[in-house]
């Protein structure tokens, strides 16, 4: 049994009154502890109001817990309020009665995809025009415990596992590239970056984390004997600080954040689609927001 820095079982028992959860660690993003949880048999069938009141009819959910440091880099401190945009945190700080307006960055991003409304405040049209892409839905946010609960995209292989599998056809790989490229371009084209949304997604901690990463990059270059590492570090830092943030971006697009269901209609990911089309799920939106339009492409293919 995996041992977690956060006691997910106790948390779930206390918040739902349901005992006997199955908790499975996910490799997931680097910032949070991430698990897939399943209720005991018979609880997720809609008959248990304690469960369905929080998780609806989901058979399993994904829970993220934000420690006060970068989960995969414990030496880098990272406020749990990274899940809360600086703008909204400030609102909370000065106006506690507006606590209900507190949103986490990832929650805000997921809700943009799943809320209807004007294109300046919604990314729903991006999902409509990209029916082979899945984004998790937000189910619960517990600001006190730094907990996010979202729908489970399913136990699918990630992009690394698919691209390195000897069983993957080049036609499948090509379909996946087309699906992802079209989705990213539609998202980057979106007019969702209203002045309010730009403030909402401003996340000082995330900006600082990347500056720390660039410092680490400099040390790697120095270790590798790159003579001009200082010039390159300065250029990268200056570019990051002054980059044009004109596109809504995922912000952490690497092999692990892209899930692939090419199981031709047999899973919950592509039950709507006609068979024989792979479906892509994109998770880990805690670095989402206004960014340089080249950022997502530079990172994955990132």
């Amino acid at each position, binding site marked *: 049994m995996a041992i977690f820095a956060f006691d997910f079982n106790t948390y779930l028992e206390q918040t739902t009154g349901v005992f006997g959860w199955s908790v499975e660690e996910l490799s997931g993003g680097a910032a949070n502890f991430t698990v897939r949880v399943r209720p005991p048999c018979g609880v997720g069938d809609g008959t248990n109001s304690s469960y369905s009141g929080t998780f609806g009819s989901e058979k399993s959910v994904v829970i993220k817990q934000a420690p006060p440091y970068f989960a995969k880099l414990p030496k880098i401190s990272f406020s749990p309020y990274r899940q809360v945009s600086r703008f909204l945190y400030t609102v909370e700080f000065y106006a506690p009665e507006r606590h209900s307006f507190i949103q986490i960055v990832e929650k805000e991003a997921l809700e943009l995809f799943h809320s209807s409304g004007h294109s300046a405040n919604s990314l729903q049209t991006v999902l409509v025009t990209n029916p082979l892409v899945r984004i998790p839905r937000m189910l619960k946010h517990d600001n006190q415990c730094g907990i996010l609960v979202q729908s489970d995209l399913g136990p699918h292989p990630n992009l690394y596992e698919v691209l390195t599998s000897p069983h993957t056809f080049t036609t499948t790989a090509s379909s996946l590239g087309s699906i992802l*490229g079209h989705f990213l371009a539609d998202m980057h084209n979106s007019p969702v970056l209203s002045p309010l949304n730009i403030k909402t997604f401003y996340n000082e901690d995330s900006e600082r984390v990347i500056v720390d990463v660039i410092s680490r990059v400099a040390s790697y270059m120095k270790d*590798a004997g790159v003579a001009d590492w200082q010039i390159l570090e300065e250029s990268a830092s200056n570019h990051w600080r002054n980059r044009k943030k004109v596109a809504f971006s995922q912000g952490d697009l690497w092999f692990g954040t892209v899930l692939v269901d090419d199981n031709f209609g047999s899973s919950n990911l592509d039950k709507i689609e006609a068979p024989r089309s792979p479906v892509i799920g994109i998770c880990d939106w805690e670095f989402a927001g206004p960014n340089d339009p080249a950022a997502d492409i530079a990172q994955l293919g990132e």
Partner: protein
Amino acid sequence: MFYLHDHCGRHILILCSTGCYLHLLSASPLTTASVNRTILAFAEALYSSYFATIKNPPDGDFLSSLLLMHGWEMVNAAAWNSRQDMWCGCVGEGVRCKHIKSMVENGAELMRFAIQGSNIDMKALRSTIEWSQFFSLKV
């Protein structure tokens, strides 16, 4: 990325493959020829689809940003012990072997191209960074 004309006078957008994770995977000694074909099929479709759909045509500034971020992301993902086991099976952390060192040097080279500004020498880029494969897209 830049435009040419084909024999019918149509614009052809010339793209190059620039993205750190696909680049690292392609450069990995663990990657077989068959897997490399899979990666390239994915990459070509990704870039073609992206640039055929994006509203604002990429310009020199976009390419410079793309190469710079690709470069430092590549150095980080290559040498970061949380992810470097995807690229080689050597023991150790950081710049632990010739494979990771080569990947770090490649990332640094991309950053050097990027800081040329909007006048990047595409021919030199192509010959220096093998991953920067070019392909055309009629627009």
